[in-house]
C-alpha cells in the first residue's frame, strides 16, 4: 500500500529524478549467516554456514567466507541428535547423514546446534513441526501470446486451509532439476478455513532448450508464524530498499539463531522447521 502512496506522489509530480552519489559502504560486521530448512520428507537436509561481507561489492562471485570446520547437529525435544557433516561440493554447507537419514515428525520440536571453529556456540529457537496441509490440485494453464506479450504457462495450486488461524505457507518450486529461489509465502489471515482455488505460483515462458517437457515439482511447506514473519520482512527489505519516507525504516532482519552465551549476539538467516506436502506435474509444449 505504501508503494501506492509513493506512486501517487510521483505520478502527481512527474518530476522525480535520480542521481548517483558516493557513500562509503566498506565495512563488514563479520556475522555468521545460517540457512537451513528441515522437513518431514525422506531426503537430505542441508545447513549452510557463511559469514557476512561488506554491502558494497563488485565481484562476480560470492566473496562471503564459508564457515568451515563447524560442529552442526539437529536436536529434538526427545533428546535425539542428528549430526551433519561438511558436504563436499560446496564449502560451508553441512548435510544430514546418509547412513542414518534424518526425517522430521510433525508435532515434534527441533532446533539446530552449531559450534564454530572460534568456539562460539549458536542454537536456533526450537520450532514445532506443524501438520502438513495437502495439495488438492496442481495444474497449469497456458495463456497464448497477446499484444507482444509472449505466451506463458501459469501454474496454479488448490488447497484447503485448515480451520484455525496461524497457518503459514511457503511454496518451493523445482523445475526439472533446478530449485527456484523465489520466496513465495502466504498466510490465512484473510482466508482462514477456506478452500483456496487457483492460487498462482509461477509463470513460465519457455522450456529448457531442446526439451519438449518440463516437470514442475511443488512443495507446500507449512511454516511456523515466526518463520513466515521472517520471510515477510525479508521480502519487504528485498523489494524496497529505497529508504523513502513512506517506507518502514529498515531494521535488522533478526532470525531465530542466537549465541547461547550472549542473546544479543545473533546470527543472520533462519533455521526453519516445516512439514511439507508435494505434487508434480509435467508441462508439454
Amino acid at each position, binding site marked *: *500500500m505504501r508503494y*501506492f*502512496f509513493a506512486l501517487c*506522489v510521483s*505520478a*502527481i509530480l*512527474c*518530476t*522525480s*529524478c*535520480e*542521481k*548517483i*552519489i*558516493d*557513500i562509503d*559502504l566498506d*565495512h*563488514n*560486521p563479520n*556475522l555468521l549467516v545460517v*540457512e537451513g530448512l528441515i522437513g518431514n520428507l525422506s531426503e537430505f537436509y542441508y545447513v549452510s554456514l*557463511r*559469514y*557476512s561481507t561488506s*554491502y*558494497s*561489492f*563488485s*565481484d*562476480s562471485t560470492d566473496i562471503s567466507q564459508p564457515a568451515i570446520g563447524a560442529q552442526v547437529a539437529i536436536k529434538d525435544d526427545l533428546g535425539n541428535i542428528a549430526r551433519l557433516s561438511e558436504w563436499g561440493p560446496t564449502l560451508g554447507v553441512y548435510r544430514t547423514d546418509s547412513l542414518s537419514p534424518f526425517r522430521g515428525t510433525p508435532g515434534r520440536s527441533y532446533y539446530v546446534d552449531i559450534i564454530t571453529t572460534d568456539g562460539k556456540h549458536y542454537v536456533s529457537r526450537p520450532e514445532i513441526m506443524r501438520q502438513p496441509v495437502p495439495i488438492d490440485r496442481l495444474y497449469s494453464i497456458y495463456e497464448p501470446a497477446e499484444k507482444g506479450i509472449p505466451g506463458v504457462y501459469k501454474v496454479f495450486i488448490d488447497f484447503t486451509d485448515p480451520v484455525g488461524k*496461524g497457518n503459514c505457507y511457503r511454496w518451493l518450486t523445482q523445475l526439472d532439476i533446478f530449485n527456484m*529461489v523465489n*520466496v513465495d509465502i502466504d498466510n490465512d*489471515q484473510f*482466508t482462514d478455513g477456506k478452500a483456496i482455488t*487457483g492460487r498462482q505460483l509461477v509463470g513460465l515462458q519457455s522450456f529448457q532448450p531442446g526439451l519438449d517437457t518440463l516437470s514442475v515439482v511443488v512443495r507446500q511447506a507449512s511454516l511456523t*508464524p515466526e518463520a513466515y*514473519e521472517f520471510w*515477510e*520482512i*525479508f521480502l*519487504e*527489505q*528485498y523489494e524496497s*530498499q*529505497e*529508504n*523513502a*519516507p*513512506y*517506507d518502514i*525504516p529498515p*531494521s*535488522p*532482519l*533478526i532470525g531465530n539463531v*542466537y549465541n547461547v552465551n550472549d542473546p544479543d549476539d545473533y546470527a*543472520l*538467516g533462519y533455521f526453519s522447521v516445516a512439514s511439507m506436502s508435494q505434487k508434480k506435474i509435467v508441462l508439454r509444449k
Partner: protein
Amino acid sequence: MLTMMKTLCNAVVIVLCCYGTAIGQDMLNRKVTLSMSEGTIEDFLKEITTKTDYTFSYINNDIQLKKKIKLDNTTGTIKEILDVLFDEQQIIYTVRDRRVILTAKKKESKEFTLKGIVKDRSSNELLPGAHIFIKELSIGATTNDYGFYSLTLPAREYELICSYIGHQSLQKVLRIDSDLTFDFALSNVDSVLNEVQITEEPENENIVSTDMSVNKPDLRVIKNMPGFLGEVDVIKSIIQLPGVTTVGEAAPGFNVRGGGIDQNLILMDEAPVYNSSHLFGFYSVFNPDAVKDIKLYKGGIPANYGGRLSSVLDVTQKEGNNKTFEGSAGVGIVSARAHIEGPIVKEKSSFLVTARRSYVDAFLKHIDAANLDEAYFYDINTKLNYSFNARNKVYLSGYFGRDVYRLGDDVNISWGNTTGTLRWNHLFSDKLFANFTAVYSNYVYAQGEPKGIYAYEGQRGIVSYNAKADFNWYLNPKHKLDFGISTLGYELEPGKIKPVDISEINAIDLSNEHALESAAYLSHTYTASTRLSFNVGLRYSIFQNIGPNEVYIFEEGKPRQISTIVDTLHAASGEIISSYGGVEPRVSMNVRLTEKSSLKASYNRTRQYLHFISNTTAATPIDFWKASDEYLKPEVADQVALGYFLNLKENMLQTSVEVYSKKIFNLVDYKNGADLLLNPAIDAELLQGKGRAYGLELMITKTKGKLTGWAGYTLSRTERLVNGPTAQEKINNGKYYPANYDQPHKINVVAIYELNKRWTFSSNFTYNTGRPVTFPEGGYRINNSFMPYYGSRNADRLPAYHRLDLAATLKNKFKPGRKWEGSWNFSLYNVYARQNAYSVYFRNKMRNDLQSSRQTEVVQLSILGTIFPSVTYNIKF
C-alpha cells in the same frame, strides 16, 4: 495667601495656606459661617481658609475638588461642613498644627469593571489575543478567544491603548466611575486608505505576558509567503518556525521540539483534527480564506489544553462579517477557491462559507503513465453566529473535507475529516466569561479494490464527541482565573474489510475501541508587579478504555506476540477495561528585566492517551489512532524551557532565545517488521520506550513596516530508547537512537517586502540537516539473494536540505469606487532547483564489462528537484 507647590510621586499637592493662630486639637469642632452656599469643593475649602486661617492639604488626584456642592446650611462646625462636602467621597481628616490633612480612604476606594470586546472595524470580526494596555498602571489585559476582555479598576480616569496585529492601535481615555462596557473597533491596516500614513503602535505583548514558546504567525505574512504551486498553506508555513520540523517535503504533519506528528493537538474551532493533510501531505486541511487566527504552543502549554504531548496548534475560523457582504475567489494551478461571508441580521448574526477543490485530476487524465483516474481533494468550511444580546452569543461551525484517489480498477482510497462545533458564550457577570462547547469530529479512511478474487472494501477511523465548559474569571488586572471541565468520548475503528465482487477473502471486522477522556483544570495568572508575573495551572485528566471489547491475555514472562496469547477476556458494554489518569502541572513565569526585555521560564507536564499507529517514516492516511489499553500505557512528557526576550527599535524587532529540554515516557514504537494493519492483537506488535529532546531556538521577528517576516535558527537533538526484555523488544540493541525527525540544524528566513500598494514580494529560505536514515552496515546472502545488513538504526543521514522560494503579488490599480480588487500571484518554488534528497537507496547494477558481475550503486532520489513556477489569480469583493 495662596501658594501651590508640586511634590513627589507624580502627585500634585496643593497646599492652601493662611496666617492665623493655633486652635488646638478640637479645631474641627470650631463653628464657622460661610458667606457662600454654592460652589466647587475647592471654592468651599478656600472659603473656610479665608474664614478661619486653617490650611488644607491633600492630594488632588485622590480627591475630587471640582465637584459642585450646594450647602443647605452655611453655618456649622468645620467637621459638619466637611462631612457635607465629602458626602460622596470617603475622606479622613487629620489635624496637625493648623493644618487639616485630607486623605482619601485608600482601601475603600471603589472599584468598577470595564468590559467589552475588541473587534475589527469593518467586519466586526472579534479579535482574540488583542492587547489592552492601561498607561497609568503599566498593566494590561488580553482578549480571550472570543475577543472579550474585562478589567476591574479603582475609579478614576485612565488612558487605554488597544492593539492587535495588523490593525491600527486605538487610544482611548475613559473615566471609570461605574461599571462600563466599551468595545474597541480597530481598523485593519489593509483597509486604511492609501493616502493615510499608517501609524501602528508596535506591541510588546511578547515581553509582558507569561506566554513563552508560542508562535502567533501573522496571517498576512502566511498569506504572502510563497507556497508550493502557489497554494498558501498554514502547516507548511509553521514548519518555517524554529523548533518545528518535518521528515520530508511531501510528508504530512509536523514535529515540534522532538515530538511525533501525533503529539500535536490540532484544533479547528476547538474540534480536534485527526488527519490534517490533503494530497498525502503536500497541503493541509486549513483553507487560509477561512482562517482568522493561528497559535502554536511549542511549550508552556496552558492548562486548558490537554490530550497531546508536544504542541497545540489552535486555528480559529473567522466568524463572518456582520456588517456587509464580502467575498473572494481564486484560481491557481492546484485548486480553485471561493469564499463568501456576510450578515444574516445586521450587527447580530453572520455567516461564512468557504470552499476549495483541487483539480489536479484534470491534468492527470492526460498522463498515461500516471494511470490515476481520480485524484482530488476538496473542503468546505462553514460558520454561523448569532448574538442574542450582549451577554449571550452562539456559534456553529463546521468543516467537511475529502481526498479521493483512484488508480484504475486496482485500488481506490479516500479519506477526510468532518467536524462540527457548537459554542455558547455567556457572560455570567462583567468579570466572569463562560463558553460552553459541544464538538463532533470524525476521521475516516476508506480503501478498496473493486474487482477480482482479492476485491474488498475496507475502512478505519475515529469519531469523537466532546462537551466542555471553560470559564475566564477576571478578578482584577492582577489576578485572572481560568477554569473548566471537559469530557471527550471516543469511538475508534481499527479496521474492517469485507469482500466484494468475486472475492475469496474473509470479512474482518476488528472490534471498535471506546474510551472516555475527562479533565478539569484551574489556571491562575498573577501579575505580582510590573516586573514579575506568573501563570500557575493544574490540569487533572482521567482516561477510561471501556467495553465492549476483547482483551488478550499473554503468557507471562514471554514477549507479547500472537503465539503467546493464552486467553481472551470479553469486557461487557460499559465495563472499564483500563483506567489511567494524573495531574499535569503547567507553570510559567516572567521576570521583566527592563522595559524591552524579559526572562521567562516554564515547566509543563502533558499526558496523551491516544496513540497514532504508524511505522513508516512519514505518516500515510492508512495509519490509525489507538486508545491506551491494558498493555499500551499513556504517553507522558515533561518539558522545561527558559527564554530571553528582547525587543528592539520601538518593538519593531522582537527577538528571542529559548532553550528547552523534554523527556517523554511510554513513547510508542514498533517491533521490527511489525504487522500493524487489521491485526486483532496489535498490542503484540507495539513497544514502549523513552524519548529525550533538547534544543536552542533563536528567532527574530519584524512585525511592522514595509519589510516583515522572521528568521530563525534551531539547534536540537531528538532521541529515542526502546529497551525491552527480549531481543525482539529492543530497538538498536537497547541504545538511544536518533528519531526519524531529528534535525540538529535548521535555519529559516521568511521575508515579505511591500514595495508599494501594488507590489508585494516575498521569499522563503529553509535549511536543515538531512533526516536520519539507516544504511546497510554489511551484506549477506540468503535464499540466493544478496541482502543488506542493518545494524544501528538511523546511524546515517541524508544530505542537508535547503531551498529558496520567491513570490510576487501584483494588485490591480486602486480605483475609487471600485467594488472589487484583483491580484496576481507569481511564485517560484525551489528557485535554484536544488535536488534535495527525498531518499537514498542502493541498487546492484549489472556491469557491462564483466559478465554477470554487479556493482553497488548509491542512488539519491529527489521528488521536487527542480523549479516549480506557478501563477494564481485572486479576487476580493
